[in-house]
């Protein structure tokens, strides 16, 4: 299985001289399975560059899995070039939205409205299919199984585990570890803590023993208190999660749009110094646009 990062930036595209090394595109990860199936995790702006590389291997059959529908994870979708070419297939997977009462078809319907995009869905030549998934409902893509797990974000967010011939990847999308909304003196504190502990067990079980964990590590521990409840993790929370899940390799992603390459490396260096790697610990890395690994 091959994994390639096409967008690692959080919130908003951030091009410019300060982000040349790690990249300014928003979330998009390409996965090539052993039987060369194409799986794409999220349709941030990174999907545009990816889509151009696909034109040489048409007809394209793309299996896109959307972690959640915030702009930075979907706004490249209308620019996924293969959808304009007959014979191609785009299969879009994602969660049900309990607020709008709609399934994943909503991401295209919303973006392709007249005022916001010149081409209507009916005018797109490729076949576009939608599959709204339930948590835990696995999808088979060739030899590969993709399984969604409900994580914690201000909108419904699925983390996806991809299993292919004994190798595995888990991508969180955006996720903030749960915290207790009650104080220790509140009557509901213990009840809530038990619910959180159960939820954490479910999440860790879903990513247990993966070869690669790619996780939202937006903030530093110092930044986090001002951003609590915004739905993102920290470098430290990602490292803790990777250790507990027994991941072999951990990629920190969803880099803050204002963080320069130099600052990103500086902060990551501090974190690594806090967690000197012991035997059995995961290998910690910063996700970088353009980087490709094979597992």
């Amino acid at each position, binding site marked *: 299985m091959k994994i390639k990062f096409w967008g690692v930036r959080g919130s908003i595209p951030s091009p410019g001289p300060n982000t040349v090394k790690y990249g300014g595109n928003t979330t998009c990860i390409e996965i090539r399975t052993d039987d060369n199936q194409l799986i794409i995790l999220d349709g941030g702006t990174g999907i545009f560059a990816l889509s151009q590389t696909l034109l040489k291997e048409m007809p394209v059959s793309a299996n896109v899995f959307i972690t959640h529908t915030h702009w930075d994870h979907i706004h490249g979708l209308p620019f996924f070039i293969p959808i304009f070419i007959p014979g191609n297939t785009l299969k879009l997977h994602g969660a*049900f939205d*309990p*607020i709008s009462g709609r399934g994943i078809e909503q991401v295209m319907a919303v973006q392709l409205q007249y005022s916001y995009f010149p081409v209507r869905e009916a005018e797109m030549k490729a076949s576009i299919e939608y599959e709204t998934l*339930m948590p835990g*409902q696995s999808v088979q893509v060739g030899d590969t199984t993709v399984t969604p797990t409900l994580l914690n974000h*201000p909108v*419904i967010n699925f983390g996806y585990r991809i299993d292919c011939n004994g190798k595995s990847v888990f991508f969180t999308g955006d996720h903030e570890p749960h915290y207790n909304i009650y104080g220790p003196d509140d009557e*509901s504190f213990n009840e*809530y803590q038990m619910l959180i502990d159960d939820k954490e067990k479910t999440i860790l079980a879903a990513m247990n023993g993966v070869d690669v964990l790619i996780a939202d590590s937006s903030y530093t521990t110092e930044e986090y208190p001002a951003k609590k409840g915004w739905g993102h993790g920290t470098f430290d929370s990602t490292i803790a999660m990777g250790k507990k899940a027994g991941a072999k390799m951990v990629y920190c992603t969803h880099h803050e749009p204002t963080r320069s390459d130099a600052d990103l490396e500086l902060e990551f260096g501090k974190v690594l110094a806090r967690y000197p790697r012991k035997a059995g610990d995961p290998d910690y890395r910063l996700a970088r646009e353009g980087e490709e690994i094979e597992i």
Partner: protein
Amino acid sequence: MNKISPELERKLTLAVEGMPAFPKSVQKILELTRNLNTDPKELVQVIEKDPVITLKILKVLNSAYFSLPNKITSINHSVVFLGFNTIKNLALSIASVGILPKKNAAHFDVQSYLLHSLTTAGIAKLLCSKLRVPGIDPMDCYIAGLLHDFGKVVFAQFLPEEFRAAMEKARDEGISLHIAEKQIIGADHTVVGSMLAEKWQFSDTLIDCIRNHHSPSDDENAMWASVYAANQISKKMAYGNSGNPCVEELPVAVCNFLGGDIDAIIVSLGGELSKIAEEASLFAQMDSGA
């Protein structure tokens, strides 16, 4: 006979979708959600005081869209499962439906209903926490108490003529309201409430508490006993009666669970009862223009 026709079932299910919530919670939710940094704890406490909002949230959570292995029975659990912002927006969309009118064609006193539901919830939770039965969560008893009479609001909103006739019959003949409902509507509020709860895939224990709060249960557990007794205690203490002032005797099985008859249970609860009543009456005020 105590059955509902498929046509009535369809009509009632649809009708609940558009049912507005209570004024105080709607007002509080609109107020709290204007703040970007809404305190989750405060919002949960407001939701838990409104039977309509609680029910609608549990309905979404337990729907087929999330295919849960275990049912979600509390608002706290809903927050952990879907995330606070999603629950906040769900509450807001429910609040936006409007406010349950104080007056309705059935002449059903919704303020008294809310008072009765809140006190039954509080008393059921208190009884259950005193019993300390492993595996039975006092908060689940609270929710069961809050929702036990939900079928009545549905009647008042959507079968007002029939429900009004049933309330009059119960009053004139001195019989319990659920018996009059059965005679006039063909099904009582326990049947309608539990039918809806079943349709929305609520937990079996919650469905059972709604269905059997006037009758014996096949599964006579501490939760059923707590809700059964709390319902009668709330009426006996005149904390609100949701159209049925008739206090029934507690079945032996309930007394066995709770260690005495209704009077003994009331004595054992002491001053905590009036605290529950005070808190409920603060919330059940319906003077905000309704």
